[in-house]
């Protein structure tokens, strides 16, 4: 059997559930939540007080110190994630051809904390108090640029923004590059707008959970759903051509299919069509899918739309559905890459992780609750939906060994 065209060979997880892939995976399996009261600032004056913060992440201990003042927290985490992912993949960029390596990340909101700080200098003191690094830290391309520079990657780099769906679009773009003249792509993404201005902006959607109960604040597909918890971090992934990964015996799983779409306001959702397109692209029948990692917004209406789309493609209750992101919160540009990492670890270990907390699931889907299911999943669908109407789906498959 021929090798798949695209394989994920390295995982760099920087998430509320752990600072590396294995730590994250064991937290997922044991249902250990990374959600807590926000500590980066005092949230007590805001209706939203819970967040998913990455614990023990001190940038100057994780990345070259000189880069710390140049970039935002979001980029710090991605630089660390990229190094971890490259190490995990066994890839030394110095040994690779410069134009055959590229970086494509997703970003949802850029360096908000850095920007807030500089605007505070501008309005508190004057234009001369805005530092030089504002020009390279706030904009959405900062992470891709810094990873490219740090690793000498001179291929066609990119940045895709589609809120929470952007992570899958970045991976889709990585696949286009691998089909062209690129052989290795650093992809995935992170986000980190848990600063006061970032949180307040997020709150305006009305989708954030105002609960103070860490176990009940984010309950996707539950009758008691009351919004989602915002988080920070994400995952950086290394994508390579299948035949080259096979030569090294590397890889967690293959990217078999991808599709993206949009749901304009006031029209029936296009999500089911996007899911079918991804399955068609992967040449996989719905019946061959062993698990669905759902987007799970934690909003009754949006969860209903997603559950209906899943049920219409697979049949009611016909496929196990899970949303382990309840343990980290929604990570925006980093969220879908983290789901991909979790799904790949599930394929590796033959486990579909559960969705802790949900007690009264909506009908129409088989939500994996209470504990992981050791069903040996080999083909998994990951769904992501981004604020404003974005949707995307990715099909992952086990490697033939």
């Amino acid at each position: 059997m021929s090798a798949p065209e695209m394989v994920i060979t390295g995982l760099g997880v920087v998430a509320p559930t752990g600072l590396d892939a294995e730590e994250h995976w064991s937290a997922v399996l044991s249902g250990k939540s990374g959600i807590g009261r926000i500590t980066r600032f005092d949230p007590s004056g805001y209706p939203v007080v819970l967040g998913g913060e990455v614990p023990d992440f001190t940038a100057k201990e994780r990345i070259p110190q000189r880069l710390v003042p140049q970039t935002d927290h979001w980029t710090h985490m991605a630089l660390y994630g990229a190094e971890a992912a490259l190490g995990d993949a066994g890839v030394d960029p110095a040994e690779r051809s410069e134009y055959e390596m590229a970086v494509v990340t997703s970003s949802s909101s850029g360096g908000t904390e850095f920007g807030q700080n500089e605007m505070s200098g501008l309005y508190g003191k004057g234009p001369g108090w805005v530092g030089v690094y504002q020009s390279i830290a706030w904009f959405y391309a900062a992470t891709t640029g810094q990873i490219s520079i740090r690793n000498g990657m001179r291929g066609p780099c990119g940045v895709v923004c589609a809120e929470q769906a952007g992570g899958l679009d970045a991976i889709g773009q990585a696949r286009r590059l691998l089909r062209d003249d690129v052989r290795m792509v650093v992809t995935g993404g992170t986000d980190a707008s848990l600063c006061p201005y970032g949180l307040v902006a997020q709150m305006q959607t009305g989708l954030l959970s105002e609960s103070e109960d860490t176990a009940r604040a984010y309950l996707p597909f539950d009758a008691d759903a009351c919004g989602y918890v915002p988080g920070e971090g994400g995952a950086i992934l290394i994508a390579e051509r299948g035949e080259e990964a096979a030569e090294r015996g590397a890889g967690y799983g293959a990217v078999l299919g991808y599709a993206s779409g949009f749901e304009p306001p006031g029209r029936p959702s296009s999500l089911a069509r996007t899911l079918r397109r991804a399955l068609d692209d992967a040449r996989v029948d719905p019946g061959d899918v062993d698990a669905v990692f759902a987007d799970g917004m934690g909003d009754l209406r949006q969860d209903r739309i997603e559950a209906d789309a899943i049920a219409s493609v697979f049949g009611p209750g016909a496929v196990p559905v899970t949303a382990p992101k309840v343990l980290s919160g929604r990570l925006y540009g980093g969220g879908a890459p983290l789901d991909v990492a979790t799904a790949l670890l599930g394929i590796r270990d033959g486990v579909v992780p559960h969705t802790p907390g949900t007690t009264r699931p909506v009908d129409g889907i088989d939500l994996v609750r209470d504990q992981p299911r050791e069903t040996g999943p080999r083909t998994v669908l990951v769904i992501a939906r981004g604020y404003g109407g974005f949707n995307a789906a990715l099909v992952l498959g086990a490697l033939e060994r």
Partner: protein
Amino acid sequence: MRRAVITGIGAVAPGGVGREAFWDVLLAGKGRTRTITFFDASEFRSRIAAEVDFDPFQAGLGHQEVRRMDRAAQFAVVCAREAAADSGLEVSALDPGRLGVTIGSAVGCTMSLEEEYRVLSDGGRKWLVDHTYGVPHLYEQMVPSSLAVEVAADVGAEGPVSLISTGCTSGLDSLGYGVQLVEEGSADVVFAGATDAPLSPITSACFDAIKATTPENDAPEQASKPFDARRRGFVLGEGAAVMVIEEYAAARARGARIYAEIAGFAGRSNAFHMTGLKPDGREMAEAIRVGLGKAKVNPEEIDYVNAHGSGTKQNDRHETAAFKRSLGDHAYKVPVSSIKSMVGHSLGAIGAIEVAACALAIDRQVVPPTANLHERDPECDLDYVPLTPREHRIRNVLSVGSGFGGFQSAMVLRRPEEVPA
């Protein structure tokens, strides 16, 4: 093989709202840069910009749209509507699942984000900003993807929709992304372009800090002078361009007017420095080489080069070297110009605005000039088409971009008559 062609153009640029007004600006060969009027810039080092005189109501937007949308979104939606009308497509009759949108932007909704920050922080006094003053659409202003959302909702797209944000190459990269969607068959029609409306104090302050913008405030119309020995930095601008890109066979079948084929696109990164450029132009040259290869066009067949031409010494020399490196002797023969001399540097938007200019240049067989170029930098020794437009036989055009983060992009446009059968 599926090919992607431009069949509609919408533009909002300094000096000209609308495609034809924009083209007239280019033909006039005059700088549209002026002393900043949007805010009191007297404390800033660079106090000039290329501002657009834009009345959103006159441009067709409604009251709720104006309230909801950042200026960059307003530009993009107005451009998309103009492009749709220009294309002759009945957009509402298209299969929405085969309709895509890709919008580029370097800095998203900076103006609103800064304006709201000023209120929520009470003039910079509160780190714990006051959420009770938050406007309902504040989140849309934090996420640049809202710019693509507005266009997608307006045209009713249900296919792939993305916002591409690669700094100052966002415009070219967004169009390149849209072309992929058409070529690979993920969409049949894509609204592709870019928008930026960055003219606010924080933008001015951050470019002041790194001394990238010109401090020459006394003669604003002449301050943007790429390739001129006296240039002292770029002039900030704003604007947008959105194009209708569709599959060539379908466009021909419906008898559409085709401006140009987007025949080749390539991006490379310098992996050198977030703002610095090496003088040798190596990675931009590689992007050009690969872009020409994809278009199956030889360097000698390029009839016009639309330069990044930002008007910083570093850029102008970097790309002059890149042209020589990639085009060889032909670099000395082909007309090269920078429209930033007239409309300023609108960050991520300018790449799309420049492609619109290239498509119009092909359509009208005229090369737009480089305004304000009186004394060529001795190290920039190409034909930069100073001051006045030039009639010229244009079959293939190369447009390039270069930006913070190290991004280098190159796009080749082809006259419709030259598209291989």
